[in-house]
């Protein structure tokens, strides 16, 4: 009787461990599943042109998702990134088309590089506003970034009275041509934006592992009180993650307006939801403390490939939304199941050991 139950428990332990490994690899499995599925059912899915197009789309989600991952790991959320994308796109367009009018009759124009730097700084500043609201004024992250979501979008619309800024080609006499490079240039056959993503992603992954501030992100999200007691400057960590998220959003704003060679104030609407979905799909825990940059990138590509593939198959856009939603829900359900299973396996091992 006793031996029977023991072996039964032993079996369930090892199957549990196997199931656990499978669950941990779920994002990878999902990525291969969507690729295989679409290469069978969607014509031209595997063509080079399509691959490059899809990677461009996925890249936009991935940038936002990297910033979002750090924010979520600290236990927060950044709803304002979609609006920052829109506002930063407008700033870029405005700087190229109109420059900055100084009070004494002169207008200063910047070259494309300077424009990019200014726009990124603008993204960081909006992120800093989020951070200050959250750390200094103790506003809940959800509410603070919901507020900046509306404010930033409203400012983007006010900037041009809701109009699109078209033809951002620049003028030769002003020396601000070449804005299209960011969105449509290629290096070694890969789009420039993909290269930038590789740099940002590697940088973020390095930061999370090798820089004290990066490590502290995980500690703060895992247990804020314990972090504070250990001498970690919690507010500084939180400021950083929201500023970094703003920076990532600014890059997306630049990339999108460069791709279209136009700035539209509604650009980026709902992108924050894609970013959150990508992070969650990649294994980032909404309760904080857990997540990886690698997982998030895979998550962003799963979502990107899923939506593009469904378009290629001619699935109605209404069904696309339903499918995307289901995928996200399943991802979280599996995540929860994994955590419960993990806990059971460890507890069983402990109970057996002692």
């Amino acid at each position, binding site marked *: 009787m006793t031996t029977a139950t023991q072996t039964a*428990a032993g079996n369930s332990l090892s199957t549990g461990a196997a199931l656990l490994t499978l669950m941990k690899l779920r994002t990878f499995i999902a990525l291969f599943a969507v690729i295989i599925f679409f290469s069978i059912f969607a014509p031209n899915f595997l063509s080079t042109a399509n691959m490059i197009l899809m990677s461009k789309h996925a890249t936009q989600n991935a940038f936002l998702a990297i910033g979002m991952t750090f924010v979520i790991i600290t236990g927060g959320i950044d709803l304002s990134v979609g609006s920052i994308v829109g506002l930063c796109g407008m700033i870029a367009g405005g700087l190229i088309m109109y420059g900055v009018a100084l009070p004494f009759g002169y207008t200063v124009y910047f070259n494309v590089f300077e424009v990019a730097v200014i726009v990124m700084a603008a993204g960081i500043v909006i992120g800093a506003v989020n951070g200050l609201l959250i750390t200094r004024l103790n506003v809940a992250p959800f509410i603070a970034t919901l507020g900046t979501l509306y404010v930033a979008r409203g400012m983007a619309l006010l900037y041009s009275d809701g109009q699109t800024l078209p033809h951002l080609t620049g003028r030769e006499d002003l020396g601000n041509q070449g804005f299209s490079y960011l969105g449509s240039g290629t290096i070694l056959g890969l789009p420039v934006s993909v290269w930038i993503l590789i740099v940002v992603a590697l940088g973020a992954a390095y930061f999370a*592992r*090798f*820089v*004290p501030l990066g*490590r*502290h992100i*995980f*500690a703060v*999200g*895992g*247990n804020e*009180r*314990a*972090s*504070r*007691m*250990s*001498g*970690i*400057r919690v507010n500084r960590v939180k400021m950083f993650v929201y500023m970094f998220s703003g920076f990532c959003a600014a890059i997306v704003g630049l990339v999108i307006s460069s791709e279209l060679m136009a700035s539209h104030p509604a650009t980026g609407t709902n992108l924050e939801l894609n970013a959150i979905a990508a992070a969650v799909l990649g294994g980032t*825990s909404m309760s*904080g*403390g*857990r997540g990886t940059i690698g997982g998030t990138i895979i998550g962003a590509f799963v979502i990107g490939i899923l939506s593009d593939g469904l378009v290629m198959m001619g699935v109605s856009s209404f069904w696309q939304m339903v499918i995307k939603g289901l995928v996200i829900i399943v991802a979280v359900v599996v995540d929860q199941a994994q955590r419960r299973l993990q*806990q059971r396996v*460890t*507890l*069983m*091992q*402990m*109970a057996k050991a*002692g």
Partner: protein
Amino acid sequence: MSGSNDGDVILELKAITKAYSGIVALKKADLKLRRGAVNVLVGENGAGKSTMMRIIAGVERPTLGEIWMDGARIHLDSPADAVRHGIGIVFQELNLFGNLSVAENIFATREITRGIRGIDHKAQVEKANEFLNRLEAGIAADTLAEDLPIGQQQLVEIARAVSLDTRILIMDEPTSALSAAEVDVLFRVIADLKARGVAIVYISHRLEELMRIGDYVTVLKDGQITGHAMVKDIDTRWIVRSMIGSDAKDFAKEVDHEMGEEVFRTQDICLPRAQGGYAVDHVSLGVRKGEILGIYGLMGAGRSELFECIMGRHEHSTGKVFVGGEALKGRDTTKRIREGLALIPEDRQREGLVQSMSIADNLSMASLGQFLRAGFHIDLKREKTAILETIRNLSIKAKNPELDVTSMSGGNQQKVVIGKALMTGPKVLLMDEPSRGIDVGAKADVFRTMRQLAGEGLAILFSTSDLEEVMALSDRIAVMSNGKLVTVVDRKDATEEMIVSASAAGHKTKRMHA
């Protein structure tokens, strides 16, 4: 343990094991509850009594093991399941709804209704009064629960459990808040219930009470059953022996070492309380190199608050802190740590560990700045070497430092928190209740570590509410009461009576320390 097999068993726990993250609270424990008898359960704090009762009450589910009732295996997956099986419980902590009346509390979840016309409050009050009168409680059933003093609230809890017509009634330290007269009433109620065939489980620390009321006694120690007998066959000495075990407490006060000059001093540390007065009241004390200073005090004496002030956790605190003769300038925890202080917080789970991180990450999280190259790059190799060295020095049982910190036992988790503090290279170590929530073996281990660290020249301040602990571990003993530092004595000159009376000095009503 003769004669423990007769009697009419109603509920049996078979080889119950319950593991929480970090600690195995019960290890293959068996328990038999008998009808019409008072089954007493005793054991030290953390022995697993409450866990066992929570399993019987359906609040927790056992990790391994079976529960049998009347010869059939049952599953208790929720408190509602337990109630359906006729199991009632009076918890140690009060579980009343303060905003509801006593009657509403008693009939919560099984209100007396008049069909669709809603709750029959009048009938509820009448029936509630009936139960309360049986307890001679002198409580009107229509008063608000929060308006009652604690002792009477406890009686309401008991009335609720009695009103459930339970076959098994668990009482977890029911007398801790009752006056002597109320205890007599309670015991009469228990005798009455017993006569009606109810199996009563009675948990208490007061041994004389157990001897008076118990029929069967079961002793728990570190999650295991160490003794089971009929009360008439045994005496209190037997209980104490089973509770503590022969290997009593090993406090490991071995080598006497030389103490150096004073490295740490506080001067007039004050922390105002929100409702007036001081939580920490002008505390000045010093610690020498290699010395262990034990701060004894009751709950609310201001020990934790003093430590928090020293670590710069309270903006409103005043007073000066000196390390090595220099007044500290930094006001926040980060700077204090850099200036050579480190704190092991009282609440390990909430303030000590980051549960989502590995053992290694927890150890190094406070000291990453030491492993930098070029000002920002963490040298993983150096970090790993330092982590392994700490694990070895403190003999932390961690086969793989990359595992989650929650996979360790409580004592080892505590050592991880200590290791984290030590890796910052402190001159002074503050330890707030370092033995809280760890089992006896791990305690001895932690104490040995403290001795060893003091021997290596660290100045240690620790706080405790355990008299034995402060007497055995300290070189000097400071007693705090109501925010004030009452006295500081050499251990050689200290007596237990002296310390107890000093710890009560600041309280208007003297409270005995249980």
